[in-house]
């Protein structure tokens, strides 16, 4: 079974990276150079460019090392994670791999796949340059297992100003109640009030609604041991979710077509992470080439102003990596100001470091950078900060079932059971 799964996953993986030779062993000297196999899911426009920018810095600083790009295509790393699981099981890890910082890494940590990185944090004094709440949310028993490269925001409400004006909505709604009123007004114009993508985008919306309805502290408490998912507050939040979802248009294939409906003026609102900014703003072949503030605009999702629902891509140091020195050298670049400032403007995210060069971040990113330093932090569910992978899979199942049944009580029970089984 495991062997069959491995073969199958490698087939998927190979077809996904176009025969990129994901199985080529790292650490093989090629022309006297050591190879570092860097495993990620950054293959899209923007993110792949950012990775190349970091690669250049890495190869300049480490003339003895060559960078081997073992990227596997697929949004939020679904296929990459499946291939990675089979590589780890077969004890042939890449030299370093991308993972969402936070609880997503718990499984790898428990399986003993990762080396702790406290030595690197001490050596580079990273505790001083990353926000303390971030360090706290990614530590497991005082140990840190990854180096965050960037920060994304999940609780962003994207909207089309022209559609709002047509519907007589004054501006971005500040609370869930205002949001519902605005959705109703848009509905009257015949436009799609809220665009939505495949099922995971509904879970993405749910985390913003939970945060907006419960408030930051109650939201963060949901992920502590013994948390109460049966509370009346959660019931209220899920009822809000149901009401909001009743204004959703036809589900699109993924988040991009859903975001595009807002950009094209077919829909008024979309809740999506701030990677959507690059999609809206970048020139065609990679983006929609829209003008910010006129074609599209943004605000914190309703009821979440002052809170940064964050997620972060990070790199790890797998145990048994063939080229450990090369991997550590890569992590140093990923942690450095220079590396993060090269990567993030291209990827459309902000650096995890507090000492970024502010001039590099304009328009949406300037807003994000300002909020990141001032806001309270809450961890994303769908993007691996707050819940581990089995928990997340169960939440996705429950939300998927809910979309069919519309049964709030069953959803709440399902979520409570998932929390009881997985919180630690």
């Amino acid at each position, binding site marked *: *079974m495991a062997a069959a799964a491995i073969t199958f996953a490698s087939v998927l993986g190979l077809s996904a990276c176009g025969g990129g030779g994901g199985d080529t062993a790292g650490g093989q000297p090629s022309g006297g150079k050591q190879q570092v196999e860097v495993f990620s899911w950054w293959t899209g426009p923007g993110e792949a460019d950012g990775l190349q920018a970091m690669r250049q810095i890495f190869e300049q600083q480490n003339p003895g090392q060559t960078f081997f790009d073992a990227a596997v295509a697929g949004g939020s790393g679904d296929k990459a994670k499946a291939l990675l699981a089979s590589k780890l099981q077969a004890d042939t890890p890449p030299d370093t791999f991308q993972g969402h910082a936070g609880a997503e890494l718990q499984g790898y940590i428990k*399986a003993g796949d990762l080396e702790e990185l406290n030595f690197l944090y001490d050596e580079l004094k990273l505790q001083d340059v990353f926000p303390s709440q971030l360090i706290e949310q990614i530590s497991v028993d005082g140990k840190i297992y990854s180096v965050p490269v960037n920060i994304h925001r999940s609780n962003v409400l994207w909207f089309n100003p022209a559609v709002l004006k047509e519907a007589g909505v004054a501006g971005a709604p500040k609370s869930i109640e205002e949001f519902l009123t605005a959705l109703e007004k848009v509905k009257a114009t015949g436009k799609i009030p809220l665009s939505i993508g*495949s099922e995971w985008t509904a879970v993405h919306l749910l985390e913003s609604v939970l945060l907006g309805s419960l408030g930051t502290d109650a939201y963060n408490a949901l992920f502590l041991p013994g948390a109460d998912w049966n509370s009346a507050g959660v019931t209220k939040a899920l009822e809000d979710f149901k009401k909001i979802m009743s204004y959703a248009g036809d589900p699109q294939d993924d988040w991009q077509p859903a975001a595009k409906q807002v950009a094209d003026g077919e829909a008024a609102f979309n809740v999506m992470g701030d990677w959507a900014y690059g999609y809206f703003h970048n020139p065609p072949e990679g983006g929609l080439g829209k003008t910010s503030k006129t074609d599209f605009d943004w605000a914190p999702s309703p009821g979440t102003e002052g809170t940064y629902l964050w997620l972060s891509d990070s790199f790890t140091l797998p145990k048994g990596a063939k080229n450990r020195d090369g991997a550590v050298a890569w992590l140093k670049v990923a942690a450095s100001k220079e590396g993060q400032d090269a990567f993030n403007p291209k990827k459309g995210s902000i650096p995890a470091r507090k000492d970024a060069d502010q001039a590099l971040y304009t328009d949406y990113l300037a807003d994000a950078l300002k909020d990141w330093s001032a806001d309270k932090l809450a961890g994303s569910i769908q993007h691996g900060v707050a819940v581990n992978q*089995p928990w997340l*899979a169960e939440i996705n199942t429950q939300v998927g079932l809910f979309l069919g049944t519309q049964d709030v009580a069953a959803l709440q029970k399902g979520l409570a059971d998932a929390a009881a089984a997985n919180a630690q």
Partner: protein
Amino acid sequence: MRRVRAWLPGLLLVAPSIVAIGVFVYGMLGWNFQLAMTDKHDEVSEGEFVGLTNFIGIWDEARWHLSVNHAIMFTVVFVAGALVLGWFLAFLMEKGVRGEGTFRAIYLFPMAVSFVATGIVWRWLMNSGQDERAVGLNRMFDWLGLPQWQWFRDPDWGMAAMAIPAIWQMSGYVMALFLAGFRGVPEELREAARVDGCTEWGVYRHVVLPLLRPVTLSALIILGHISLKVFDLIVAVSGKQVITDVPAVFMWVAVFDSHDPAKGATIASYIVLSVAVFVIPYLIWSVRKERRP
């Protein structure tokens, strides 16, 4: 010695494949069933034997019921649709269409396409957008003034829509099977029936169809086992969404998202058993038939 000489070379010839099948098919099957009967619910734990706990426990999960119902609906629509359409195409061929070779090739071609490619094309064709947002089939229906559908996103009948691409893909193959069957019916039998005053419909009803029973059964088995294992088509059309969940997709989620090997193995076991329900009676039947003189 002479007797050994008679069977030994033959055995040596097939031994590699017996060993390979023994290890990679039956060995893996055994390993899977063994894993399904443990409590190895993450990758780290050793896994103690728990008997049939997992097999029973999974029936408490709403998602499992949903995926089983989906698999049944998909199988019924797909198998019936492909059989009827394949039979009808073969019937037309048999009645002597001009340019039969061309038509045969056209209907068989979809077989050469992978389910993934089929799925990606049909994802667009079966887009659920309607009216001004319609594309694919809905656009055509809109233009023709016909009702538009949610297709695979329909909460009740979505899996029936999901069977359409599978029917499109496999009915040509069923046609080829039936055509061979039709051609295998001796002309004398038909003539004898006609001489006895049988109508053309009666010839088919009482002479040809009964003789086609073995072909129908083969087609049923082939389609049935493809259908119960279906994974690639579903993933290509809709990804791993709950709304189109089937056991094979649930198995993928259990192994790679939930990181629960025992649950994945349990679902895999159920898939194997459900296919066995189709295949084993067929094997018994065909072995019996071969024994008969």
